[in-house]
């Protein structure tokens, strides 16, 4: 007889894609969490170090600045340690607000239908047609940004329509499912139907929307920072790229200046993508094939 484990540490959570994607994100998160314990983050500011030192493996590399320094005498390692978490934070805040608003609006629209649905749907559809970067540029140019939280709030303005549409569409299809009817026959109320029966079945879509939302918000934030519209005092991945392009780092061969933030962004985007795919397989046992 096959005995199935009912513990929470189910082997199905050891999905390959999820583990790889999760480790990638974990590494990036650890840069920000553990980094400050080992490295002096004051080196991230102007004039704290010699200028334009190459990284340690290059000819004139120096152990005091293993990833080199840039034009204005900022240590690259310290900049990454400070900048990476601030980029992640923007993504998390914006996507969480977007998903929260999307869950409420989407389930209202899908469940209540009629006028409520018409209003919410029209709003969400119109919002998706607006070219967000153009609007963000205008807003960002007029708002004084001291830190990244304000920027996250601005990005959240465009993070809700996509989750709203996904949740609404899912509620509409799930509403007709046999198991939803079974739950209603078992006396479940609208709240239980939504959160116990429907929500778990939306997880793949929600996870895709959420991780996509985080990536999108990070991309949006980076875009604004590269354009020089982000907070200029706190280092962020986009700001490093902005300063590197401003100082023609590409032409001058200072690859250690512009390449690390791009690499970290690539790890972030790939990691979230793999997490989405892994979650999909866990949330939907049918995708797992016959091994269970």
């Amino acid at each position, binding site marked *: 007889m096959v005995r*199935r484990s*009912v513990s929470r540490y189910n082997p199905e959570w050891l999905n390959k894609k999820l583990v790889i994607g999760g480790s990638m994100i974990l590494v990036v998160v650890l840069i920000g969490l553990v980094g400050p314990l080992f490295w002096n983050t004051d080196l991230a500011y102007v004039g704290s170090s010699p200028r334009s030192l190459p990284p340690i493996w290059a000819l004139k590399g120096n152990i005091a600045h293993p990833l080199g320094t840039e034009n204005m005498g900022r240590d690259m390692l310290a900049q990454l340690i400070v900048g990476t978490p601030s980029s992640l934070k923007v993504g998390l805040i914006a996507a969480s607000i977007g998903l929260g608003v999307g869950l409420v609006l989407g389930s209202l629209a899908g469940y209540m239908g009629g006028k409520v649905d018409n209003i919410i749907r029209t709003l969400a559809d119109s919002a998706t047609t607006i070219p967000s970067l153009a609007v963000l540029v205008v807003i960002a140019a007029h708002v004084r940004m001291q830190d990244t939280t304000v920027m996250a709030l601005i990005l959240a303005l465009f993070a809700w329509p996509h989750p709203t549409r996904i949740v609404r569409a899912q509620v509409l299809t799930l509403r007709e*499912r*046999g*198991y939803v*009817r*079974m*739950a*209603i*026959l*078992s*006396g*479940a*109320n609208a709240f239980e139907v939504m959160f*116990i*029966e429907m929500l*778990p*079945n939306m997880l793949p879509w929600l996870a895709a929307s959420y991780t996509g939302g985080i990536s999108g918000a990070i991309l949006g934030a980076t875009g604004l920072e590269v354009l020089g519209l982000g907070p200029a005092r706190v280092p962020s991945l986009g700001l490093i790229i902005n300063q590197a392009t401003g100082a023609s780092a590409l032409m001058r061969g200072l690859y250690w200046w512009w390449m690390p933030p791009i690499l970290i962004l690539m790890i972030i985007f790939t990691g979230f993508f793999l997490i989405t795919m892994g979650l999909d397989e866990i*949330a*939907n*046992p*049918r995708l797992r094939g016959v091994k*269970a």
Partner: protein
Amino acid sequence: MATPILQIKNATKTFGGGFLDSAPPLVALDRFNLEIHESPARITTIAGESGSGKTTLANAILGFMPLTEGHILYKGQDIGQMDRRGRLAYRKEVQAIFQDPYEVYNPFFRVQHIFDMAMRHFPMARTKKEARALIEDALKLVGLRGDEILEKHPHQLSGGQRQRVMVARAYMLQPRLIVADEPVSAVDASLRAMILDIMLRLRDEHGISFLYITHDLSTAYQIGDEMVILFQGVVAERGHTVDIIEHPKHPYVQELIASIPAPNPKHKWDTDIKLPPEDATRLQRVYGCRFYARCPMRMDRCKTEPPPLYSVGDNGHEASCFLYEAGTPR
């Protein structure tokens, strides 16, 4: 006589035909009446072809779909106007089994969930042990054991097992009425016999009535007490199952029963049934008899005047056909 457990009055459901909808509304169910009494428990069959309004009726009774007109009364109370407590009582007493045993399981949860959910809202057991005993008892009825299936995911069960679990779930709640919407259409022949047999046992030993919705007259003949034959949303014929199957009166029902295949290889299919295209039948919808376009016995008045139900025999045997206007069964 006591108040019927379920009373369907003048139930009408139309689809479409809204303010901006140019197409005429589709009448799925037209002024349908039915009474189901608590005792003695009976199996009432609602039979008809696709689009006859069977499932619309089931959805309306289970409260998934509001009626356009008419009322459904549970012990004299309109189910559309119940408060939360009344509705919960209604839910416990009127349960359902559906056709598709795949769709009714949430793929996210183990089979246990389907019982837990019901236990949570209808307090039947005080301890986990009591609950488990109730579940085991219900599963025993359908020939399953809890340790075999409860911890499994629904996709690990066979179609037959799933449908039997649904029967067990409905039985566990000890309802007075089970709406069984094509419960055996998706299972194989041996399991079909088993489920029909369980239905009979629930009726005889536990006093549970059934509203058995099917397109399959032979299973209705096996287990049904009363029968209503629907055609395009109206009653063609109603009465005792045996009376209808053995002495059908309405031309549609006569054709229907002639079309039941006999399990006899020497039987030659000599009845030549000619059906006009669907469009022609739809045109007759709003006016006269809905069967006009396909009827071999049609008269001119059938085109303009809908026939009422005429008594054609004992035990409330009725048919909606002008042939029986004079009350003389042929």
